[in-house]
């Protein structure tokens, strides 16, 4: 019986469809977290959606975990509770991606807003979530953005156009590594260090071979792409709005990544200077 949809959502669902709904809810939360949503926004969205489907939610989200309990008590007025109230809890371990993707967040927000207004059947919700999950970023856009970023900041900090072009060239290498090695990386610290070292050594060699390039400026362009500055700023904002633990976890993580990045580039400078 799939009564978790449409008009009769005031009825208490059976366990199976309750569990299924909760699982979809966690899918949504997981995707939001992995696309870089703020903790408060994830908690808010999940709660609203659960309420729209007739549940009383209890949601707790931190950086890598979501815990949700849903209580279905039937009618608000206390009538029609013949089926008794049920309560279900699920937790989800969220793998760290730390790749900000506002397009996906936009689609997820849109979906949840639509479902809050008019709850759709679980099969449809599941299909929509799968569709959003599958929609992958276009590598060409990623390349374009990275090259633009690297070039601009290389020139921004005082490099010549040539330095900027070199930085853009190495940003292609970064995107390539992210799309190959990045997929299999188990440890973000080690991964950051290796990427930084590879890119740094590449730039070092280029600048020694062709002294027209100014090593600091080329490197800075690519450092801007790799450094976790955005994560740090978000971490502090997270703390300020009351999610202290999540903010601190992120702050410690991103500081460690920054140190790893520094270690990688320092190794490269040391080897090629």
């Amino acid at each position, binding site marked *: 019986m799939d009564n978790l949809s449409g008009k009769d959502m005031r009825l208490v669902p059976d366990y199976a469809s309750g569990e299924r709904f909760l699982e979809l809810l966690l899918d949504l939360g997981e995707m939001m977290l992995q696309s*870089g949503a*703020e903790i408060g*926004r994830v908690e808010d969205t999940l709660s609203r959606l659960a309420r729209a489907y007739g549940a009383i939610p209890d949601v707790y989200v931190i950086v890598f975990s979501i815990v949700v309990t849903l209580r279905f008590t039937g009618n608000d007025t206390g009538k029609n509770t013949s089926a008794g109230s049920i309560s279900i809890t699920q937790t989800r371990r969220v793998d760290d991606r730390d790749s*900000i*993707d*506002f*397009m*996906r*967040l*936009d689609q997820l927000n849109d979906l949840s807003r639509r479902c809050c207004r008019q709850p759709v059947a679980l099969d449809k919700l599941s299909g929509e979530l799968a569709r959003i999950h599958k929609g992958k*970023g276009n590598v060409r*856009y*990623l390349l*374009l*953005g*990275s*090259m*633009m*970023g*690297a*070039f*601009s*900041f290389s*020139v*921004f*900090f*005082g490099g010549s156009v040539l330095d900027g072009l070199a930085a853009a060239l190495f940003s292609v290498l970064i995107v390539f590594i992210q799309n190959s090695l990045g997929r299999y990386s188990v440890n973000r610290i080690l991964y950051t260090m290796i990427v930084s070292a590879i890119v740094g050594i590449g730039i070092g060699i280029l600048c020694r071979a062709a002294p027209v390039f100014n090593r*600091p400026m080329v*490197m*800075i362009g690519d*450092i*801007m792409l790799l*450094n976790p*500055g*955005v994560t*740090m*700023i*978000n971490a*502090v*904002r997270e*703390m*300020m*709005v009351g999610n202290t633990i999540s903010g601190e976890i992120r702050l410690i993580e991103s500081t460690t990544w*920054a140190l790893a990045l*520094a270690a990688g*580039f*320092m190794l490269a*400078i*040391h080897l090629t*200077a």
Partner: protein
Amino acid sequence: MITVKEIIQLFMAACGSMGFAIIFRIRKDSLFPAAIGGLGAWFFYLLVSKARGDYMAASLAGAIFCSLWSEFWARRKKQPATVFLIASVIPLIPGNALYQTMNSLVSGQFHDAWRWGLVTILTMVFIAIGTSLVSALFILKDRVRE
């Protein structure tokens, strides 16, 4: 007076923010506001840094501008404020100071390393303070209204 170098910087700040906006897959109609946000951030940084010669106050000013700018566009485009904030705050991130820190460490100039390291950390701290302050105020405003 504004120098040629600074005009190039402002232009590059806009392009850089645009680049990051593309990486973060911001909606197409929001790319331009995000890029101008980057330009504005650097403009206010330069303004304060010239008036006071102080990179900390300058970073703070730039960050406050970014937050206000992003809150404004978030309401207009009906998107979360982070969309605009993250892209426009990028030019303030101390990439140069981080590089100088590493370079000084490798070449054994520990005094310089200490100085640049401090610049890196303090710049980040002041960007964080600036952005958090404004978003905290906006959240407060929403709560009071409710």
